[in-house]
């Protein structure tokens, strides 16, 4: 076991897979000479040279498409977006090409590509830089989407993403890059599509992923002081979704609150709520609640931004609401 940062875990996964497999290469804006906008790719240009670590011109649609073209004929590209917000410019390559090539070609082609980068809010970067893009991508058949919260998961899921023969989208977080955590020396790939119960509890299930897992844990610790034991399910994978782990937890707690960044309309939270009401209906003691970003474009002003984002106090309030239902 070693304690390393989230960004180091991601980097180790990429380096180890690139050492093992010569077909893996990395490209994106500022990933080489600059060592990555957030230092995730530090040292990789020096290690692998400019043919396997490419600094691209500013053209997201362009380099995403170049990645797709390379992936169809034997390479395994890792494409970094400086933030997932900029993937909007490459949306057509991901939605209409990477996701569909295998199916539309009758299985003749595959697209083993990883798209990765920081997602959702950072701090005071305005609405156009703060989108939680996983909600858009997780709706698309043909794509897999992961959103790790801890360094060990970041490493294991990144390895699995690189080895997978489908397009996999890795949603990181600028606010998690410096977070430290224990990572086993021999951390191998973690199976995609598996959630993790990161805190056991019996009174309410909190479902979260990425940075919101940490917010849910904070809320759970505060709730424990008031005698409410929350179970925290860290999804890790958003598609495929581990409905078994979610439903098993709700069968135990009878209540469910989902916490995620991004708008409340549709999205991963709505998807989880659908599974819970269908598969754990008879067990539920309260409606499933969601704590999400407010339904407005993210403001720049720090106070307004904090008011928009899901915070532990909103999670605590939602948990209390479902726990006290029928008791008051």
């Amino acid at each position, binding site marked *: 076991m070693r304690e390393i940062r989230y960004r180091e875990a991601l980097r180790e996964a990429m380096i180890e897979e690139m050492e093992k497999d010569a077909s893996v290469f990395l490209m994106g804006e500022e990933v080489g000479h600059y060592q990555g906008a957030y230092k995730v790719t530090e040292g990789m240009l020096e290690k692998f040279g400019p043919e396997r670590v490419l600094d691209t011109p500013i053209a997201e649609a362009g380099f995403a498409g170049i990645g797709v073209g390379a992936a169809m004929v034997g390479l395994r590209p890792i494409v970094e977006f400086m933030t997932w917000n900029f993937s909007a410019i490459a949306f057509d390559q991901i939605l209409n090409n990477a996701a569909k090539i295998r199916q539309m070609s009758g299985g003749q082609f595959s697209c083993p590509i990883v798209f990765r980068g920081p997602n959702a809010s950072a701090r005071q970067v305005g609405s156009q830089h703060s989108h939680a893009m996983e909600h858009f991508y997780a709706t698309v058949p043909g794509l897999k989407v992961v959103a790790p919260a801890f360094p060990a998961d970041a490493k294991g899921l990144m390895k699995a993403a690189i080895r997978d023969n489908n397009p996999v989208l890795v949603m990181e977080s600028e606010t998690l890059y410096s977070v430290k955590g224990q990572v086993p020396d021999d951390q191998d790939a973690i199976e995609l599509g598996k959630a993790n119960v990161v805190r056991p509890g019996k009174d309410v299930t909190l479902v979260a992923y990425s940075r919101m897992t940490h917010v849910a844990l904070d809320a759970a610790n505060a709730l424990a002081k008031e005698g409410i034991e929350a179970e925290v399910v860290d999804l890790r994978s958003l598609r495929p979704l581990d409905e078994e782990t979610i439903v098993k937890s709700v069968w135990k707690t009878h209540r469910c609150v989902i916490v995620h960044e991004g708008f409340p309309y549709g999205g991963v939270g709505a998807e989880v709520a659908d599974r819970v009401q269908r598969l754990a209906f008879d067990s539920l003691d309260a409606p499933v609640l969601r704590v999400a970003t407010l339904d407005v*474009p993210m403001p720049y*002003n720090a106070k307004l931004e904090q008011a928009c984002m899901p915070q532990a106090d909103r999670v605590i309030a939602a948990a209390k609401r479902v726990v006290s239902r029928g008791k008051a």
Partner: protein
Amino acid sequence: MSVENSRELGLFRVLRDDHSQDPAVSVPDAVVLRAYREMRRLRILDAKMILLQRQGRVGFYGACTGQEAVPIGTALALEADDWVYPALREQSVMLVRGFPLTQFIAQVFGNSGDVQKGRQMPSHHSGRSVNQVSWSSNIGPQIMQAVGTAWAMKLQKKSSIAVGFMGDGATSQGDFHSAMNFAGVFKTPCVLICQNNHWSISVPTAKQTASATIAIKGLAYAVPSCRVDGNDLLAVYAAVKEAADDARAGKGTTFIECLTYRIGAHSTSDDPSRYRTDEEVESWKRKDPVDRLRNHLVHRGLLDDAKDAALEAELTDEVNEAVKVAEAFPAPSRESLFDDVYQELPWFLQEQKEELRRAPPAPSHGG
């Protein structure tokens, strides 16, 4: 045609090394004096904003130090009702066109003194009163929007034109090529200006494009293009004025590459010493656009050291005073979050607004 004579490969200059000017170009005294005042003020303003960012009083700022001649020269060459679509480094066009300095600075603070209500990132100013539209944080869209606005002016038979800015890195985006293509096909009354400041964060222009110059790209789109010394206020002014006149006269779009240099960091989150040498920066400091204009004004008999020092003191006071006023505005109210998402406040936002009002602000939210 020799390279020097090619509009796309050569470099159009007006100011000479001995501080005189090419007599073929005339720029009135009032324009050069105003330009100098605006450039000096902008430099003081940028330095102040960077300082405030370091002190943690503002979150972000994109300075244009070393590139002032481009936005200021452009602003002075336009008519009041022309439309302006800046990229990161041309917010100051609106200041020249009458936007109040305190409101400009309040935008950087993102508080209730900001006409954008604290919603947009700093250095993404927009001002309806001066026909300036905020760029998008994603690089490129404003170039096409400028062409679209120009098309609207043409259809509505208005005499206004549109000006769109971009950095050299932005010319790699599809949006640039779509905009140039549309502008060429539909002869939109537009001026597109690329500030080639040699760097896109850490990527040098040579790694952004293999073209000999950026202006040469215009040839393929049949958009008349030229390459201009972007640190030469007189050259920028003259080139933009001619392009704007052409656009107004129905001759379509001109593309102008302004050769300049970003003296400071890319933004307040960048450390340029990691990718470029001090010698390179120093060599460009010797071509500083403010210094060059100052020397020209002295040569022309319009400025002396005493006047210059008085101007510096006056502008410093103006900026400091404006910062004081702008910083004092409180944050916008929490309830304001739901305004302007739609024209009307729909029931579902009304509901969320009431829910928020019922919840006491958490310590992290403030009032």
